């Protein structure tokens, strides 16, 4: 059930990423109405949206309700930005621009209360990495041996600090060049809107190849600067995966499914857990549950 819900939100995020540029093309067509952009050479999705919005009275106001990407998105009048984007822009420009700074408040609040949920539930690259990991696992079961290098989980804090310092020194945004949510949003947008994409695809491919052949889930576990920021915000979170110590028989089923390589019985109290809930249905004794605050539900 939890897995299904998580897949549903991830699918919704991907549909939103595809919808926004496709609807943007339709919106341009409606506003300019045959000025110099006919509705041709656009995607199948744009044509379907065109048919749908065509009957409406004021289609542009509906089309532009949702704008942007996972890096910075505006829904109606509300703008939500990635805290990483806000921090980086604040450090590199060295100016205090309040309307931008307050756009990060909602994700920061949600992270403080719910933990690193962005990683497991909303990040558009997470299902891709998980699918990659799934193929690797299946091949390992089939008998193909891959090297399994493990990197320290502290690497991501160094990458976060280094990236912020780098953008501070250079005076430009560095994270959107490789940070997966921003990168993949840009690739999808560019592909649908301009029918082209930059070198970001190469970086995504490198990450996937590294995870496939060298170290499973290495990016999310030990290199992602966004994950590092969310981890730093989440140690006092309310929502946690908690164990019922009486029911648990230490079988170890849960830590084979954990995407972050943690032991959910003990390590869900640490700041690395992203509350994805993959371990909850994996437990055959139903001893893992979501709960509030630190500590176990009962001590066995």
């Amino acid at each position, binding site marked *: 059930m939890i897995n299904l819900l998580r897949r549903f939100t991830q699918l919704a995020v991907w549909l939103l990423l595809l919808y*926004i*540029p496709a609807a*943007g093309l339709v*919106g*341009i067509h409606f*506003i*300019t109405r045959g*000025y*110099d*952009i006919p509705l041709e050479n656009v995607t199948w999705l744009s044509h379907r949206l065109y048919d749908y919005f065509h009957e409406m009275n004021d289609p542009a106001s509906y089309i*532009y309700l949702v*704008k*942007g*990407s996972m*890096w*910075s998105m*505006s829904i109606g009048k509300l*703008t939500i*930005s990635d805290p990483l*984007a806000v921090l*980086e*822009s604040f450090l*590199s*420009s*060295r*100016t205090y*621009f309040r*309307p*931008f700074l307050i*756009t990060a408040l909602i994700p920061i609040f949600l992270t403080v209360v719910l933990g690193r949920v962005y990683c497991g539930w909303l990040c558009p690259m997470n299902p891709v990495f998980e699918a990659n990991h799934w193929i690797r696992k299946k091949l390992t079961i089939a008998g193909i041996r891959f090297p399994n290098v493990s990197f320290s989980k*502290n690497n991501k804090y*160094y*990458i976060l*600090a*280094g*990236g912020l*310092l*780098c*953008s*501070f*020194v*250079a*005076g*430009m*945004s*560095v994270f*959107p*060049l490789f940070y997966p949510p*921003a990168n993949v*949003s*840009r690739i999808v*947008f*560019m592909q649908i*809107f*301009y029918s082209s994409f*930059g*070198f970001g695809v190469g970086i995504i491919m490198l990450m996937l190849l590294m995870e496939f052949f060298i170290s499973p889930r290495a990016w999310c576990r030990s290199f992602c600067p966004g994950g590092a920021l969310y981890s730093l915000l989440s140690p006092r979170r309310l929502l946690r995966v908690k164990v019922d110590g009486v029911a648990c028989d230490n079988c170890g089923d849960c830590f084979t499914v954990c995407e972050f390589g943690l032991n959910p019985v003990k390590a869900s109290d640490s700041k690395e857990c992203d509350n994805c809930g993959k371990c909850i249905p994996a437990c055959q004794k139903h001893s893992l549950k979501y709960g509030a605050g630190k500590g176990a539900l009962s001590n066995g």
Partner: protein
Amino acid sequence: MDDKTRRAFLKQSVSAAVLTIGGASGIGALLKRLPMDPVTEGYYYQSAYLRPPGAIPEEKFLTTCIQCFQCAEVCDRKAIRFPGAEAGKGINTPFIIPVEKGCDLCMRCTDVCPSGALRKIDKKDVKMGEARIDDRLCLPWIDRGYCGACTTICPNNAITAGFRNRPEVDKEKCLGCGLCEEVCVQEAKAIRVYRV
């Protein structure tokens, strides 16, 4: 934690911190030396790259823009483009390339920009660039007839037809929107917009 492991841990974290700070400052210094302006630093010496209307000064713009693409999404004319690594520091930041599409000053990009790189300003205060006429290419200037394309399209009436319909640009009134460059009938554009 005994003394030996503590010393190893300290050594490890100090070396990692030094590596991070050194590497980040090094890469930052390298990136800082990248060409900032593709026009003046020689990349696109032939075509003008302009910032969208309402852009704050160029050095500030590069540090503030978060590359979120919302300005491109609402741009009716699809005039806002994003150059790749050839733009140096300006990679993935919005540009208007007036040879392809000029800006019609609808100002919707300034409404959506979340980061403050494009500020809400009045249409009259826009200064994206300045148009200059090349009198060796412009048809009326070389006595090849009466064209009048740029004088007709200019939204602020900054281009006036003078003697023999030869266009002249009023630099005070020119907003630098680039529509004149877009509509110029010459293949090698006789009127070009340059950043100021």
